[in-house]
């Protein structure tokens, strides 16, 4: 009995001590982590709008070129000529996919898609995040939705080639991007 009490006591005390250490480390690093995430977002937005900038002028470049517009819960990053960009997220085949899409001022034409985070199979679905693949989306239009096509070349304005060997990732991404853009654009128009 005494032994059991001693054991529980030891584990609890040690757990509390280590929790205190983790708490201290977390409060020291949290502001920096939040700032890193914010900078990543700003970099991605600027790149999505194809605005060039110097790393040291990131803040100024962002503030000068981008208007941050909030509608409901969604944040939109609007340029001077009314092009918009916003964050999208949802599930891919294996894990969450998060990124930024920019649309021209007609709110139909894709300017650029950037992937910030994905967990698809490396070398197959993971190629989704490669510039070479994502550039296939540029200038395509949501009329009415984007379709990712397999087994033939994309021809129409709303068709994009799928990734060979990653049909399910392609399908998941098609579903995700259509749902997210449709609702975000509707909310923006309101």
């Amino acid at each position, binding site marked *: 009995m005494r*032994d059991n009490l*001693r*054991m529980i006591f*030891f*584990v609890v005390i*040690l*757990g509390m001590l*280590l*929790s205190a*250490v*983790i708490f201290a*480390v*977390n409060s020291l*690093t949290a502001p*920096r*982590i939040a700032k*890193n995430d914010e900078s*990543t977002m700003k970099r991605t937005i600027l790149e999505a709008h194809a605005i060039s900038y110097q790393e040291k002028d990131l803040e100024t470049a962002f503030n000068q070129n981008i208007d941050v517009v909030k509608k409901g819960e969604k944040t939109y990053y609007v340029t001077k000529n009314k092009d918009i960009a916003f964050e999208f997220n949802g599930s891919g085949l294996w894990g969450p996919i998060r990124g930024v899409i920019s649309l021209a001022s007609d709110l139909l034409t894709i300017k650029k898609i950037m992937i910030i*985070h994905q*967990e698809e*199979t*490396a*070398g197959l679905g993971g190629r989704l995040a490669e510039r070479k693949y994502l550039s296939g989306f540029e200038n395509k239009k949501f009329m009415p939705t984007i379709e990712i096509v397999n087994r033939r070349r994309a021809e129409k304005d709303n068709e994009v080639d799928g990734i060979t060997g990653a049909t399910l990732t392609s399908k998941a991404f098609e579903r995700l991007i259509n749902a997210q853009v449709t609702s975000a654009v509707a909310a923006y128009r309101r």
Partner: protein
Amino acid sequence: MGFQLKKLAYTKSYRILRGNLWKDHPVSCGVLGMCLTLGVSNKVANAIAIGIGFTFVLVVTAATISAMRNLIPKRARVIIYMIVISSFVIIVDRFLKAFFPAVAEALGPYIGLIITSCILMGRLEEFSMKNNVYYSMLDAFSSGMAFAYTLLILSVIREFFGFGTILDVKVTPAWWTNWVVLGMAPGAFFVLSIYLWITRTLAKVDPQKLGHLHG
């Protein structure tokens, strides 16, 4: 000189270093830590980051456990290893996220996987619980380094052939076709098994005598 060298060969420190770095190598000989070895040996940058993070976690947990070894209730020791290991892994994770966000993003879930590595549990159970802080740290450091250099060798091979780069710098000629399979998990098995074959032969590991495996 020869006399001194001979004497050196019998010190405990020398035996620890020689064992961990070559003769009883945790990966080559123990076949431990496979999850991380297969998972993060695809790029040199990942291998270096995990190698350093892993060694840090191993050294501090070994020192902590060794310092407390006479206080730790025997029946609760495994849970105590887990608490200590996971705390330090969280610290490494936060540190990387704060100061090296690009590395943290590339490593993704693998930092958390350090917690489950059997090299850690093995060294704590087999060595740190029985030896003083100095030897435990030496043991932990050499085991960590042994793991790190193995990761480095595997990742140089895999990144060169799989991606045509070293540390993300293009090193192969333009006509080079990447062996994509080496960048993916199945490729890790090929490279690792050839590596194990070579190192085990050179270190004269006798599979029949591996009964004493540490962990």
